[in-house]
């Protein structure tokens, strides 16, 4: 079974803090993705990566950055968290065409 693990299920941070969301997959997938999910807006792509040290902007990259130093790990970074970044964050990796998702991190920025 494919496993995509996100480091935290729930996270509470303060405005202005630097936040790291970690994602690890165990299936040697090349492609990894970060989404945020908000009611009524579905899943929106923040960043994705097709290879180590490679990153591409998705639809809503502003306020975020990513890091892919190893194939299995894809990190999402909020340089200075803001309240409008309160959301559910989902990481995924792709095997063939299928997206395998982690359990998600619900981030609250106060």
């Amino acid at each position, binding site marked *: 079974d494919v496993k995509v693990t996100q480091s935290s299920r729930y996270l509470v941070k303060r405005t202005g803090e630097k936040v790291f969301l970690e994602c690890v997959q165990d299936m040697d997938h090349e492609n990894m*993705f970060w989404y945020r999910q908000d009611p*009524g*807006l*579905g899943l*929106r*792509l923040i960043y994705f990566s097709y290879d180590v040290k490679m990153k591409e902007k998705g639809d809503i990259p502003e306020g975020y950055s990513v890091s892919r130093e190893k194939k299995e790990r894809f990190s999402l970074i909020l340089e200075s968290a803001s309240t409008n970044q309160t959301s559910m964050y989902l990481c995924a990796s792709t095997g063939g065409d*299928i*997206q395998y998702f982690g359990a998600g991190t619900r981030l609250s920025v106060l």
Partner: protein
Amino acid sequence: GQQVMQIPQYQHVQEGEDFTTYCNSSTTLSNIQWYKQRPGGHPVFLIQLVKSGEVKKQKRLTFQFGEAKKNSSLHITATQTTDVGTYFCLKGAQKLVFGQGTRLTINP
């Protein structure tokens, strides 16, 4: 940008009634996928459609891809409480775009 419009946003049915959600694109799709997200869970892949006019079935679920490959639907016959969740379509290929999702709730 390229969007996939999914309707309805919400659907509440009595257990045993049918349910359908639709995805529409202004551009031709190379393929479309469907995912289900249970309450409190994460999206899980259901199926991928690739061919024009394709119809696939999984028990009570029927998936269709339009002849022009611009729309797709997911139909559930005789819903059960286990069908509760949000159903998403995903436009694949070069740019991944999810539909907004249809949240299905069921009155037992």
